[in-house]
């Protein structure tokens, strides 16, 4: 009844004082600010609600031990700012060079305070519209035919102020701690509040529940002073360098693994926390037992009557009593503020901590509600970087672009190039694009071919999960086929039990590129845009359905895919064969020759030479081409009885002829292998 009264009173108030904005963003953490930046740049009407007095309140508290595990690389040896973002996991995207994280910390693994400081500056320097001290406590819908999505979002804050928005961007992150309830769980300390002073653990025996980075981070902090530390979790430890997933255990936190495997008393155990029970004895020591035993005992008897596993199994692993038990089980999304009508449902299985969303980051239940930031990680959980700043800064931009198209008729940004620039555009992007690199297998560049393959349109960083909806989502048309440029790890390379250091793990030759293991570019070619159905029926763990052709650029130790023969040449052949044309470059002289001997010209000559931008080339280059047998040297021809007596000329010819030993006829070049 009280609930009914509560909602009733809200309705009464509703028509009165609603502050309206086109876009409401909940949360001024990294993703909320990132979204605000794009909305501001586009000149949209938006507001960000932040319950704290400053941005990034999560980082003000977490990680408890203050060390961020996202890398802050100062030097890459390159000045390409886009490339450098591949190794900067903390900066948000903006045009302002001051807002690069390396200006905020010189540490490779920075202190979390630097992040708080950075986010403050990001909000203030860019003058983002953030309303602080505003905790949204309730979100509901108001049906309205006129609204962008058929309804408005009504938000209520802690002071009963009401806000109305057409589109809701939820960037609240994951901040509700995961807890397990078992008998004795009241003795468990949470990661949120546990002491971070190692002194407090001196000479203690500690049990840590959980096996994520927070658990290991906690262990790392007290490793040197405890008697020993045990860690219990249901799943096996997943090392991020084996899984290529940054959310798994990072090497910087894994000191305990070392001590465990080097027989130094610390240890790891697998077990379901739901089956546990903790019993406190008279001395205040905590004993591990099983819920099963507790349920079967007679309730009247005291602590001593409780069966401990070691009573039956005297070598039970955790028979030693603990001084402390610490829970480090991670966080989940706060579902509590959303009215049922929003149908914001938890995901399934290991994604139940995340709200259910589509690959476009839009809620499955409510149109116009987008989940941003770490809470949107269900799209690529345990795969890519969408749950982390260095990933969701790009997916947030993608969402913004989707919204621009949907609500403001601004199609997805694209550039049109002549077909001769096709190889170049791909090479440029796979070498520098940071969004493709960080959000591998999730964001992809799309190349839409124009009629007759004379030109193409290049779209960057489109969410590949909604490829089938491309035309509707981007406002661009794809009637003539498309390429999808994406980055992938080898299919069987990553995994918790995989040996990622096996001998001969790297593929070196372009012809075996499809077996590449490390992150490498893959280009899919489709004659038609894949349908929704084809997307659904794609092979498991393929990001895309079966293409008409596919090309892998062989993995590279330096992630530098600019080698003319190993990288560019096979790519060109692939593109040529997809488009059924010849994409080679030609010197003006060759174009001249073709103009007089062929009715049709190759695209490079057609778009360059004929348009009076022929590549004349220096004499030195011409000579190299002749030596390579790719250009015929007509000056060196010997026509009997037709020689000029010009001695200088003659000697030059002689010289050239000597140089040009393997002269193959130009026919070799001309001979287009047809069938």
């Amino acid at each position, binding site marked *: 009844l009280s609930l009914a009264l509560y909602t009733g009173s809200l309705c009464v108030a509703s028509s009165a004082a609603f502050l309206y904005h086109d876009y409401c963003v909940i949360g001024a953490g990294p993703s909320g600010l990132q979204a605000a930046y794009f909305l501001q740049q586009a000149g949209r009407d938006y507001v960000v609600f932040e319950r704290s007095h400053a941005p990034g309140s999560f980082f003000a508290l977490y990680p408890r031990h203050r060390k961020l595990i996202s890398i802050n690389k100062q030097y890459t040896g390159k000045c390409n700012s886009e490339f450098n973002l591949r190794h900067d996991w903390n900066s948000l995207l903006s045009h302002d060079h001051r807002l690069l994280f390396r200006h905020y910390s010189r540490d490779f693994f920075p202190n979390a305070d630097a992040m708080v400081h950075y986010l403050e500056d990001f909000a203030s320097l860019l003058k983002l519209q953030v309303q602080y001290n505003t905790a949204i406590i309730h979100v509901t819908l108001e049906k309205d035919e006129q609204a962008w999505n058929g309804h408005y979002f009504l938000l209520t804050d802690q002071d009963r102020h009401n806000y109305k928005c057409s589109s809701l961007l939820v960037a609240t992150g994951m901040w509700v701690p995961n807890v397990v309830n078992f008998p004795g769980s009241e003795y468990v300390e949470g990661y949120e509040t546990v002491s971070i002073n190692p002194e407090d653990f001196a000479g203690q025996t500690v049990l840590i529940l959980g096996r994520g980075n927070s658990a290991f981070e906690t262990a790392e902090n007290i490793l040197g002073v405890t008697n020993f530390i045990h860690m219990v979790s249901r799943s096996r430890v997943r090392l991020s360098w084996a899984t290529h997933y940054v959310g798994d255990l990072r090497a910087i936190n894994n000191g305990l693994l070392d001590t465990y495997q080097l027989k130094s008393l610390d240890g790891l155990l697998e077990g379901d926390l739901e089956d546990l029970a903790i019993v406190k004895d008279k001395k205040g020591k905590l004993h591990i037992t099983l819920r099963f035993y507790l349920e079967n005992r007679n309730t009247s008897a005291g602590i001593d009557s409780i069966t401990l596993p070691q009573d039956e199994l005297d070598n039970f692993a955790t028979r030693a009593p603990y001084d402390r038990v610490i829970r480090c089980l991670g966080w989940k999304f706060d579902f509590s503020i959303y009215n049922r009508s929003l149908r914001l449902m938890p995901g399934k299985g290991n994604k139940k901590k995340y709200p259910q969303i589509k690959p476009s980051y839009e809620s499955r239940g409510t149109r116009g509600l987008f989940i941003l930031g770490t809470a949107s990680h269900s*799209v690529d959980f345990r795969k890519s970087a969408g749950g982390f700043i260095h990933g969701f800064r790009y997916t947030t931009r993608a969402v913004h672009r989707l919204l621009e198209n949907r609500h403001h008729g601004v199609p997805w940004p694209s550039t049109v190039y002549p077909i001769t620039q096709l190889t170049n555009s791909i090479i440029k992007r796979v070498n520098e694009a940071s969004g493709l690199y960080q959000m591998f297998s999730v964001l992809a560049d799309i190349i839409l071919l124009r009629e007759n393959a004379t030109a193409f349109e290049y779209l960057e960083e489109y969410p590949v999960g909604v490829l089938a909806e491309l035309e509707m989502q981007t406002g661009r048309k794809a009637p003539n086929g498309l390429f999808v440029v994406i980055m992938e790890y080898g299919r069987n390379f990553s995994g918790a039990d995989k040996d990622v250091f096996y001998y001969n793990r790297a593929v070196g030759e372009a012809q075996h*590129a499809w*077996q590449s293991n490390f992150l490498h570019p893959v280009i899919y070619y489709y004659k038609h845009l894949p349908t929704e159905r084809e997307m659904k029926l794609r092979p498991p763990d393929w990001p895309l359905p079966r293409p008409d052709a596919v090309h892998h650029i062989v993995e590279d130790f330096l992630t530098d895919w600019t080698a003319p023969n190993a990288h560019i*040449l096979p790519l060109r052949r692939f593109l*040529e064969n997809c488009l059924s044309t010849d994409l080679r*470059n030609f010197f003006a002289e060759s174009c001249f020759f073709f103009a007089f001997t062929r*009715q049709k010209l190759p695209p490079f000559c057609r778009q360059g030479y004929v348009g009076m931008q*022929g590549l004349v080339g220096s004499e030195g280059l011409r000579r190299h081409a002749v030596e390579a047998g790719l250009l015929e040297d007509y000056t060196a021809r010997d026509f009997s009885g037709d020689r000029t007596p010009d001695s200088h000329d003659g000697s030059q010819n002689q010289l050239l002829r000597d140089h040009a030993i393997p002269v193959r006829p130009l026919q070799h*070049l001309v001979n287009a292998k047809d069938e």
Partner: protein
Amino acid sequence: FFYVSASPGAQPFLEQIENSAEALQDYGISVVKVNCPKEDVSRYCGKENALRKAYLFRGNMLIREFPTDALFDVNSVVANVLFALLFNEVKYVETLADLQNIENALKGRSNMVFAYVPATGTAEHRAVMEAAFVYGTVHQFVLTTEATLLRDTGNDEPDVSSARLLFCHCQRATDLAQPCRRTAMGQPLTMLNIHRHLKLMGAPLVTEVAEDPEKVSTVHLQLGLPLVFILSQKETYEADRRTAEFVAWQLLGKAGVALLSRDLVDLNILLRSNVALKTPDEGVPVKYLVLEDTDEVITLVEDKSKVGQIQEDDEEDEEDEDEKENNNQDIQDDQVVEAVSRDKKRELPLEQILVLTEETFHSALLETARTVVLFYASWEAVSLAVLRSYTEVADHLKGTQGVLLARVNCWDWPGLCTKENVTQFPTIRIYEKGERWVMYDGMWGTEELTSFIMLSRVSCPLKLATIEEAEGYLRGEFPSELSSYHHASVLGVFSTAMNEAREAFEEAGNILSGHVTTGMYFEDDALALSRKYMVSPPALLLARSGGRSVEGIALSKQSAQDMVRMIRYELLDIFPEITVQNLPRYLQLRKPFLILFSDGDIGEMESKEMLKLAKGRPRQAFVACWLNLKKTPVGYGVLKVYFATVPSLPLLLWVNLHAGGQVFKFPSEQTITEMNILSWLEKLKAGLEIPSSTLSEEDWKPPLPAYDFLQMMETAVPEVPLHTSHRRGDTPAPESPGGDTTVQREPSQETKAEKGGTPGRDLRGTVPRLAAREKQGKRHSEL
């Protein structure tokens, strides 16, 4: 069967047993029904129970009684009856031990037919029994209904719901410890199939033949199966025999295998061929193939559709094997890329060219009147080729005042290039102090770029103040910085009132900046100028080659675009020398070329006649031009394509570049005069001349195929359900995209596939290239 006429329950059974009568007759079994009189209480009629049974007699001896419900249809009647009769010929087993005992007893003596039927009385059971009736004396038949037994016989995943028949080759078996070799029948169990299978099992494993395969016929061919010939020769006979037997075992029941001795038969086939395939179809010739291992032979048979494909591939291989070696996909065939990479070790003299960065770009532009900026990417071949020409330009312009050459590497500064809206590499722009820039849209050559930079130093159009300046301008003497520079000048003459035309001309001048110098004169005495050149303002005066010829052109059209087009057109020569650099300008006219090829300068006479022709004819019809082979030696290449050898020079040709591509040669016995040419052109038009050559119409296809990774993936990892989306009908989505499938995936499918190729199975070493093809995926070890 004994029945009482009144009992209605017997009716269905009676029908079935009557239907079986004919089938049983074939086996010498008669069906008799006895109508029991009511009062009869004899042995068979009396007992109530007896009426629910059928009885089998041999002579007057009762062999077996059957409950009528076991004889529910013709199949069950025949099967059960024969089962009872063939008690010795068909052993029923229930345990593996029984089976092994029988098997062991048979070893070295005779073969065994082992049949599994899910239940007795089925059609399959009947088929087995019928076969046993015929072959029971030749082979030992063993029957079971125990599914576990089927599993024990080595069938991994038997489908226990369907019957199976295995032929066990126990006669050849010598080792008591080993089970007999088995050959499963692939087809469903019908009498005909079993018969066929047993017939095939009975045929010799490998037939040796010494005649033309076209004439050979074996039981396999008669039964509609293909016959594989392993081609052998004396030296390798033993190995070939082993190979043939190995293949024969693999193909048992699917195809026959014959060993053909090449030494005995004179075959007109490739020496390399090692396998031949004869299909049962009439009139299909025997195919000879070069295969590399026995697996290929087996796939050949199992997937006949592939025969054609393998064959074709093979033929292709034969034809251009040598070429393929040199013509590999991984060899660079892009002349620009190759030339640049061959040049990469040479250090470029870049000291004259200022490197700009994101930080220095804007400040540097302000320092000099004009800054030429090359935007390029350091990995891109065309940009690097242009960079080489650019260094030459820098060398030419060394010391030129007011011009700074600079470059921006977009690979280092993508933000700057995006901001400057540079979307293509290379791009050259000339920035004037302040904001304005002009894009270079000419040839990427040293000369052209140098000239463009020089000409664009002068503001365009240049406002001329006095009539003397205007005259000097037309002579190429003014402005002085260009006086040493060969160029054409366009002077716009306007009267003071003609604002609109003047503005349009100014805009046109801007567009043409760098390509041609434009000047304008609109002082009060402009009329004097126009009178001198016999034009009335607004008009253009076009001065070529230092003002020796000045043409006056009336300005009728007023828009800037029209003026640009007109000026460009007027700048074209009437009888130009075609070069690599200027051809595009004439190509744009999209007219046929009347072109005189000459080794060196053309003669005065020809020049005069051609010029007359070019001037006399309406210029719209064709482009009259000439080509100096000394200056443009690629012309030799063109002539070689037209005539195979270079004919005697000079040579006049009519080339229909844009329509049809015909090339006509002016008769060499005629002298090149206007009259002769005109009459020849008339004949051409009338279609009276035969073209000497026609330009190829061929499209520009990919020069070489790409690596077919999709196919490689399918071959190496067949388990990958690449085709699912196409094949499967309405199966639901296999996995949600976010599903946690990566973790629990099967152990490396790749390694499984690799293991698939069992070693030691390849064909004997007589096949060349055998080893060569064994190339495994090379991987980089260590570095």
